[in-house]
């Protein structure tokens, strides 16, 4: 309390923390101004990334799975299409495994270049749904090397130059990614057009996913 003791210009040297209580008197602290030096540019870059993605100037990559999720689109157009059966394994001890032994039989579809109109993707998180919408305006969603592992696929499809019944290891129209294991039924085509697409997927990956008009939010109902 005495002013002379409290207002000495310099602190005593040496281990100042005399550890009277259980907290040392002098300890590390976050200085707000120092943190702001990094926070301000980082926030600006984050905002820039979000805006560029929403405008479709920047592609992002998706690789979500573990839970089935639904993808819908009013229209899908693609070039270089391949499809074959595969077995997906869940992570060991996954709570979603149920009585399947952790394996899901899926249809893997690979599309080299795809454009989608009014894409909607939703994951059921139990009670609420995480919904991503994009491509509702004039600009469409584009994806390259789009690979989906789906258990259900419905829509009105039209194929060009389709070959059905190839061995999955001999596919060549969707590039090196669109090749499956030996001895598995498969089909491929030069172009694909699916209207009112609805897929239940276990995994989606895409080399680049451009999402103009991106909206991400929680909703009571899925797609």
């Amino acid at each position: 309390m005495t002013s002379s003791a409290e207002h000495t210009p310099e602190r005593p040297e040496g281990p100042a923390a005399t550890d009277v209580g259980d907290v040392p008197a002098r300890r590390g602290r976050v200085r707000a101004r120092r943190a702001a030096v990094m926070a301000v540019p980082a926030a600006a870059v984050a905002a820039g990334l979000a805006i560029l993605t929403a405008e479709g100037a920047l592609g992002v990559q998706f690789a979500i799975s573990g839970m089935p999720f639904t993808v819908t689109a009013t229209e899908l157009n693609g070039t270089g299409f391949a499809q074959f059966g595969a077995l997906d394994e869940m992570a060991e001890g996954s709570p979603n495994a149920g009585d399947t032994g952790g394996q899901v039989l899926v249809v893997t579809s690979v599309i080299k270049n795809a454009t989608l109109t009014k894409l909607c993707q939703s994951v059921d998180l139990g009670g609420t749904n995480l919904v991503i919408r994009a491509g509702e305006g004039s600009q469409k969603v584009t994806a390259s090397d789009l690979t989906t592992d789906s258990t259900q696929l419905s829509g009105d499809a039209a194929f060009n130059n389709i070959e059905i019944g190839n061995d999955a290891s001999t596919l060549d129209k969707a590039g090196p990614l669109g090749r499956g294991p030996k001895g598995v039924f498969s089909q491929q085509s030069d172009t694909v057009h699916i209207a009112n697409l609805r897929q239940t997927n276990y995994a989606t990956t895409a080399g680049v996913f451009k999402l103009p008009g991106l909206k991400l939010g929680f909703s009571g109902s899925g797609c």
Partner: protein
Amino acid sequence: MPGRPRGNLRPAFRRWRAGRPFWGGLLLALGGAEILLTLKASLDVILHVGMQGLAGYLLPAVMLLCGLLVLFNPTQRLFYSVIGVLVSLGTWLTSNLGGFFVGLLLGVVGSCLAFGWLPDQEPRVSRRRRRKAARAAKTAIPAQP
């Protein structure tokens, strides 16, 4: 404080915490872990997509690592936090929009806290008392270099 051995642990932990940017490192590591959790895609598909798919796993792993290194090697915190913030921002492009934004936010906030942290600061004083002290110092020691 009942329970002597347990009562000893808490102050020890506090002292350990006081010597490093604890929340910064923890948030950065948690952000990386959250993004990894959202990524659980089968590795088969990832390997199909190749380099870019692998980057989706690599970046959050680096976040996790940087967060732990901030905690266990706090002297190098500036380097780790700069790498941490860049990688956190990068996950927006490579890993599910940065774990659906949550992991990205945790990572950036954690990196900023680690960057802004300084060791050996004086105990926190309220603004009112600081002002009073400044006034008193001016009157007590008028000429100070």
